[in-house]
């Protein structure tokens, strides 16, 4: 039973970690807590649904399942479609709301504005897609039995594998590409970045694009392994913040490891406390990390 909880924790932690990377970057580089970030996961998941609906109307060209998975090659196209669409939505929000507010208002105003944006985004999903849960696929999947009597679905293994690939790719981007290095420079010192020749506005656009793309991937994977519903992102908001704060603002690996810790803690907690209290675990983690190590596990100490 313990190992099953560990496996479930790792799987939910992977989704939380992916979603938390963008949130963590926003906190560090844009310097505000963006409560609307979790809604980008919701929109990412529903953009995936839009793609599958369009693909189905065109005759399901990508629909043949790959091996034991519940989906075909269309899932990869859906991930790209969703990442592009969610990035466009994030850039639109940045241009219409956050960029303008940043010029005239303080960070607290930005935080409150993000609450408003979150409400708007959530209710738009409700309005367009309705309140009922939706599934990408009605294919029945059989769990694979792993050593230790652990059962996982092939889709969940895919989720974990894709998370590892995405994080590794992002690591290469942040350390090898000039844009990635500039992002790290801007997060430390925007003025010095400017005088070095970095176009900070363009880098901020990249922060939104990367954050939104990862959120969309997390949203689609969540939709794939659980279900789509308008409160998908809202339910993840606390775990996402817990992961970002736990890992340290701006830290790629911090967000991923933070996500895994949150996922594991939530799933292991049910062994000692009633399941009803499971959502309180991220709260406790946030309080603990803020008390003992406010900069997070991988954050820079000031």
């Amino acid at each position, binding site marked *: 039973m313990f190992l099953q909880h560990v496996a479930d924790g790792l799987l939910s932690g992977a989704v939380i970690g992916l979603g938390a990377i963008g949130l963590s970057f926003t906190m560090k580089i844009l310097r505000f807590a963006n409560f609307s970030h979790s809604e980008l996961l919701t929109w990412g998941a529903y953009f995936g649904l839009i793609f599958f609906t369009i693909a189905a109307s065109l005759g399901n060209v990508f629909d043949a399942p790959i091996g034991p998975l519940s989906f075909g090659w269309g899932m990869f196209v859906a991930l790209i479609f969703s990442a592009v669409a969610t990035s466009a939505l994030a850039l639109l929000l940045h241009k219409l709301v956050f960029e303008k507010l940043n010029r005239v208002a303080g960070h607290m105003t930005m935080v409150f504005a993000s609450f408003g944006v979150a409400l708007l985004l959530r209710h738009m999903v409700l309005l367009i897609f309705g309140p009922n849960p939706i599934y990408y696929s009605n294919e029945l999947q059989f769990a694979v039995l792993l050593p230790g009597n652990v059962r996982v679905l092939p889709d969940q293994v895919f989720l974990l594998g894709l998370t590892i690939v995405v994080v590794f790719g992002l690591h290469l981007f942040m350390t090898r590409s*000039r844009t990635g*290095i*500039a992002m*790290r*420079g801007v997060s*430390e*010192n925007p*003025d*010095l*970045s*400017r*005088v*070095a*020749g*970095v*176009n*900070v506005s363009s880098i901020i656009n990249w922060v939104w694009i990367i954050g939104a793309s990862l959120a969309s991937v997390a949203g689609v994977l969540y939709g794939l392994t659980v279900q789509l519903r308008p409160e998908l992102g809202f339910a993840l908001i606390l775990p996402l913040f817990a992961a970002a704060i736990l890992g340290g603002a701006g830290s790629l690996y911090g967000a991923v490891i933070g996500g895994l810790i949150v996922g594991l803690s939530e799933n292991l907690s049910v062994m000692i406390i009633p399941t009803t209290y499971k959502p309180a675990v991220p709260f406790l983690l946030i309080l603990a990390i803020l008390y003992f190590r406010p900069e997070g596990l991988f954050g*820079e100490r000031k």
Partner: protein
Amino acid sequence: MSAMISKHVLEATGVVAGYRPELPIIHDVTMYVNAGEIVTIIGPNGAGKSTFIRAIAGLLTVTSGKIMLDGNDITGVPAHLMAASGVGFVPQTDNVFTTLSIHENLVLGGITLPRAQADIRIAEIYERYSILKDRSREKAGVLSGGQRQVLAVARALLNQPRLILLDEPTAGLSPMASDELFTVVRDLAKDGAAVLMVEQNAKAALRISDRGYVLAEGKNRIGGPAKELLEDPEIGKIFLGVRREKTNNRQKMGES
């Protein structure tokens, strides 16, 4: 940018600037710097020296006046375009990215260049400053104050700037590190760059400078050859610490 024939690399005329347009800190400041020349701005704290240099670097809004670089009007050009225009700026504090490696600091310095050209320039920088090459993979945050300044200057040199702006480059450095840094500054001018420097250590800075300007309350007060400024008793009294030295001497005599 409108090109004009100019013998000056930098020509600032009647510049008014500040952190907020409605509250200018510098008023009608005019100065120029030629190629291969070191010019130092001195003045009391709060005179607007750093504000002026930050305005030239494009970090502050210039509400009035004109800034020309090699005859091109660069007034109001945003800071991130200044590097590509030929201006290298080394701020007084936080002038390296402490969380990035030394190599990554240099990569950012050359971000406006095509990648292949930037790699060549970084190799040239490593040749010139071997300390940076030896420690290229280390985080800049572990460098000493003097080494950080060398890295900051090297980062600004990546674009081969025609004009180098240095804001109090020896602040917080030991006398030995300051001397070493002034040697670096002299070499920059020898290579043909125009150097405009703000420096608290006014005497030492004027000694390596060709000319100087005295700024007080945001306005140009006096300007001229550095040697004349050093020998001017009034300037010595007010800005070069002569009065303080005399007072200290009197105190010492009283004590003895």
